[in-house]
């Protein structure tokens, strides 16, 4: 006996994708509602990091290294958004 890794991964991925999509929708509600810009940026951070995680999982499913390697850029982009917002609010300009 033994598990068929591909079939088990595919079956679990269906359930996981539903949960992730639900979470993305709820994040999106807060991103639209968010009273201040900082709330929106916090939510977009969470969305970007979770999207990066989901892209790695999808990369295993589609057998594509290119899809997974894009998540590195996505994670760094969310970090850049934080720092630029902070510099804009505190210093008044973005000094690159």
């Amino acid at each position, binding site marked *: *006996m*033994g*598990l068929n*890794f*591909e079939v*088990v*991964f595919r079956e*679990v991925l269906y*359930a*996981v994708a539903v*949960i*992730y999509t*639900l*979470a*993305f929708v*709820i*994040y999106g*509600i*807060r991103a639209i509602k968010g*009273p*201040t*810009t*900082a*709330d929106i*940026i*916090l*939510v977009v*951070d*969470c969305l970007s*990091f*979770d999207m*990066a*995680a*989901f892209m*790695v*999982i999808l*990369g*295993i499913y589609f*057998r594509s*290294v290119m899809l*997974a*390697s894009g*998540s*590195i850029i996505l*994670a*760094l982009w*969310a*970090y850049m*958004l*934080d*720092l630029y*917002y*902070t510099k804009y*609010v*505190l*210093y*008044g*300009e973005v000094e690159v």
Partner: protein
Amino acid sequence: MSPLDVLYHAVFVTGMVFIVIGAIYDLIAAIGMLRFSDFYMRTHAATVGTIGGAVLPVFGAGLVALVSPQLGELRFFMAGIAFTVAMLILMVAPTGTHSLVSAVYFGRVGRKPRLIVDQLEEDLPHREDVAELVREHREVPGEQPEFYFRRRSR
């Protein structure tokens, strides 16, 4: 089953459990992000959503990719990318959240929530090593206005 097969099954099951737990963490963080009342409370939900909801499933995906036979030789690349992304998010997410919170606190973004005690505000006028940053700007004729920080006078 050979001992190597047992090891592969253990790694695969561990990775799948990490992915499922991470998805549940993500849903909990989304609900918390929607229902918490002010910005400082929402940063708790952001921590759950990034560390529990992103680092954990990426680490699990790396473990799964390491033993997936359908990926062929590609699985080592995939596992390397997954572990790199996990370490990157683990370092980058708390740093970004801290900088965002400092921007909200010192830049006075939005309305400050009603706090029972704010020790930072009590301490700031008495401390020399931490400046309460007040943003001001000076008009320079013919050029862009110049922004600078000033320590708030006591």
